[in-house]
């Protein structure tokens, strides 16, 4: 293909041209706005170079919400196209691009960013730490994710989006059958973002293991921190597999390798295998933090401690190991034979046991409690029934012989959405509402929040339950059209209605943020929910150094203890506090990664080499740099503490 042809969109449509204009206008508006308000310096000093885990968390949050709407727009378009038989809203190519980007954006750039957002903001506070172990690497993680996401998101206006599904199975995704640059974007953008995720994994493991407040033994860690620890452990061992798989795919596509081709010994199955060796642990990377969030919220609003703390810990540890031994269930139908399928069928169903323990523990946490229904609690309570349905259909899918019938059908689509939406999206919205006052100093409106909850949870049921039926009736997933005779019409129309409700729910969330920002009271104190763990023990807004005095901990609900049992959290004098310096290198280096990625996507080798040298220059700079951070003097700490609510 000629050099300039690669930049053309394979199947242009008015929607795409409109998006190009919209993207350009938005960029111009942002640049003009920042310039007009003279905020470049502020932006650079306070945000782009920040290494503060709280600010990085907020930036993850904003990116995740943006990506939620990007992926959501894809979803609405898909449901609209299939709402009617033989609909012609989208053509096949466009539909294929949309479900591919929907999957990638939602999993890699929305859900992952959302959990990173909450982990970043909450974990250091919850363990009583000043920051994470490697603040600068933390910034690098975020910016790698951010620039990776940007690279992926420009695909649909420059060169065309990937169109081989989010699983990107070869040889369909290979050069033979996927000639546009779309899959190059997939391989490289995910690689860059994945590198950031791996760094986060290492960073948080060390943070949690080494930086806990005195007295907080492993078995006295709050459950969200436990889930974050195990999640990051899975990240560290799962993401390298994706790195290798993507590198092999990149070699195939850019350098003529033969890993997954149809000729010269290439083995297409190996991609599927490696993808799911990463892909299944990835599911648990997404769901475990959600479990942690529910384990914080349910006790708070049942006003009781978490039931069965030890079995909760045991079950997430067990899940972390089991998550690595079930991947073959994603391709039971690849012809391995009954023996292999049986092994992986059993391991798959075994995961239901620790998951079931968790569900029952949450239910028993309600027992003898004093339940108040707030928005975070509503999401947690809505999660239990919907997730149970998603979960038990997962067990059904785990039965290999029956899976031959469910595989690649709408039944599967229904299953994983009914797991991921309550398991991840509900949890993220619950966590967002729950920790919002700690982040921003005001609460989100409860009434609008409840409306959002009902729209989203009913929308989820309406959108995905019909898919069980159409799946069992023979509707394969990823079909852009179907004939009227198939009888799928009614179910798909219902799904579309559900999708509209979901969209309406998300719009009300945005409205809620707007409304609450304008009208909500700023006088909420530092503990508006009467909560139980350490993050609520510090001021709102949280000072840069989190805790002026490192707290003393004696149980997994240290703050509750201090409120109810008179445990003394903070004792001793203010001391000088050591803090890390801001740095522009993570931002610059990640931006160069973007350039490298872009030039690889379009095979612009000279630029790629220059970018690679740029990255090495950043690394060399870091090696020689001597940066010992700075100290906040005692007087300043005292002043800040008094301003924020009196010295303790």
């Amino acid at each position, binding site marked *: 293909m000629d050099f300039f042809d690669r930049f053309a969109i394979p199947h242009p449509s008015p929607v795409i041209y409109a998006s190009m204009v919209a993207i350009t206008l938005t960029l111009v508006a942002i640049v003009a706005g920042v310039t007009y308000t003279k905020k470049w310096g502020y932006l650079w000093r306070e945000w782009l170079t920040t290494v503060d885990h709280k600010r990085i968390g907020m930036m993850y949050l904003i990116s995740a919400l943006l990506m939620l709407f990007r992926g959501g727009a894809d979803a609405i378009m898909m449901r609209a196209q299939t709402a009617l038989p033989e609909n012609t809203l989208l053509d096949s190519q466009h539909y294929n691009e949309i479900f591919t980007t929907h999957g990638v954006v939602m999993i890699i750039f929305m859900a992952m960013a959302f959990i990173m957002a909450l982990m970043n903001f909450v974990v250091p506070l919850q363990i009583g730490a000043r920051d994470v172990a490697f603040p600068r690497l933390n910034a690098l993680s975020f910016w790698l994710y951010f620039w990776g996401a940007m690279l992926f998101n420009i695909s649909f206006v420059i060169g065309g989006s990937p169109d081989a599904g989010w699983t990107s199975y070869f040889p369909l995704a290979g050069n033979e059958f996927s000639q546009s640059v779309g899959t190059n974007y997939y391989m490289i953008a995910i690689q860059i973002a994945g590198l950031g995720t791996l760094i986060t994994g290492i960073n948080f493991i060390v943070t949690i293991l080494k930086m806990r407040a005195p007295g907080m033994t492993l078995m006295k860690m709050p459950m969200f921190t436990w889930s974050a620890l195990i999640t990051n452990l899975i990240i560290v061992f799962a993401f390298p597999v994706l790195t290798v798989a993507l590198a092999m795919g990149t070699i195939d596509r850019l350098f003529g390798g033969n890993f997954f081709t*149809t000729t010269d010994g290439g083995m297409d199955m190996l991609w599927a295998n490696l993808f799911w060796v990463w892909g299944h642990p990835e599911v648990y990377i997404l769901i475990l933090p959600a479990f942690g969030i529910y384990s914080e919220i349910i006790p708070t609003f049942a006003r009781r401690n978490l039931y069965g703390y030890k079995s909760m810990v045991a079950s997430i540890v067990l899940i972390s190991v089991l998550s690595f031994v079930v991947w073959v269930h994603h391709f039971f139908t690849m012809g391995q034979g009954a023996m292999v399928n049986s092994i992986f069928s059993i391991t798959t169903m075994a995961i239901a046991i620790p998951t079931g323990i968790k569900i029952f523990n949450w239910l028993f946490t309600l027992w003898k409690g004093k339940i108040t229904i707030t928005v975070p609690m509503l999401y947690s309570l809505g999660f239990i029934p919907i997730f149970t349905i998603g979960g038990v259909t997962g067990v059904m899918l785990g039965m290999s012989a*029956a899976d031959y019938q469910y595989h690649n*059908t709408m039944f599967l689509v229904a299953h994983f959405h009914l797991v991921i939406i309550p398991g991840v999206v509900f949890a993220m919205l619950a966590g967002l509402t729950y920790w919002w006052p700690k982040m921003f100093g005001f609460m989100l409106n409860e009434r609008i929040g409840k409306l959002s909850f009902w729209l989203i949870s009913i929308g989820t049921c309406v959108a995905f339950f019909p898919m069980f039926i159409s799946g069992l009736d023979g509707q394969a997933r990823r079909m852009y059209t179907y004939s009227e005779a198939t009888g799928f019409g009614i179910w798909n129309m219902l799904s579309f209605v559900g999708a509209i409700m979901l969209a309406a729910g998300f719009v009300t969330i945005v409205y809620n943020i707007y409304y609450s920002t304008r009208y909500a009271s700023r006088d909420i104190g530092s503990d508006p929910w009467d909560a139980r763990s350490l993050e609520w023990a510090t001021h709102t807004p949280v000072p840069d150094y989190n805790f002026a005095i490192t707290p003393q901990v004696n149980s997994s609900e240290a703050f509750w203890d201090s409120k109810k049992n008179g445990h003394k959290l903070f004792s001793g004098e203010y001391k000088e506090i050591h803090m890390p310096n801001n740095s522009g290198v993570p931002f610059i280096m990640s931006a160069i990664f973007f350039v490298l990625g872009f030039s690889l996507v379009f095979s612009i080798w000279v630029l790629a080499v220059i970018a690679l040298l740029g990255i090495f220059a950043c690394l060399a700079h870091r090696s020689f740099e001597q940066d010992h951070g700075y100290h906040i003097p005692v007087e300043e700490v005292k002043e800040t503490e008094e301003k924020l609510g009196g010295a303790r």
Partner: protein
Amino acid sequence: MKIKGALLLLMFAVMAVLTGCEPLMVLNPKGPQAQTQADVILLSIGIMSFIVIAVFAILIYMLVKYRSSKQSDDYEPPHIEGNHIVEGIIVGIPVLIVIVLSIVSVRSNYLVEATPEGYEDQDPLVVYAQSSNWKWHFSYPEQGIETVNYLYIPTDRALEFKLYSEGPITSFWVPQLGGQKYAMSDMVTTLHLAADAPGEYMGRNANFSGEGFAENTFSVNAVAPDEFDEWVDEVQETAEPLTEEKYNELLEPGHLGQLTFSSTHLEFSPPPEGEHGGHHHGDSSDNSEEGNMNMDQDHEDHNHSE
């Protein structure tokens, strides 16, 4: 309010099961393999409903009984660590269920991976089913005939489909006869099926394979054995033989109607099994240039031409 939501969910679940009884393809099997799978599915739906109902019941009970509006203002919930008996039950019952389901799963998997029960004594009818973008080619080596996009099969006889693909991974699926299996370019997979009742069944490629995927379907005509033999005779007499040239033409990406030939492509374009499998990819004629990166390469060049 919460109960209303829960009831709504339950209603959907019940509806899904009820409407599922008769018309849904997967639950309306016409062959022993599909029957096995439908039985497993219904059994698992039964057991799973029990779990779902248990969870719903506990949730509703807790929410009704322990709402703060039903408690006195000074009620302080107790601190409860956990209880070995309760935890034993919530581990024990799921373990038992998983053991039962594992036995069912393993047994049924061996069943569907073997010649259908009751047909072990006869020779199966072997059909090579090859997908290409976006068509299905069915070769009957025994009868020496080939069809495109439709199948004729005898009832009450074991069928052995040999699946492979000329291009992306596809999945051969006839829901009413049995579950699907992948067709891939570098190996042949085997799917055992059989039809109990005559009729016309829907078959399709279930694995996403690009632009023409949605329309990548075929029809399956199950007829009585003697009727099948008549059809074979008729094809052998009236249809044209399949030439290599014609075959390569058929492989061009696109959609075709139903076609019939009185010879198969297996001789001049053998399936990737045995010495032609990916493992010992034998032919070396045109491999040397293919390694080069060539974005314009048409995939028709990649036929296994000998």
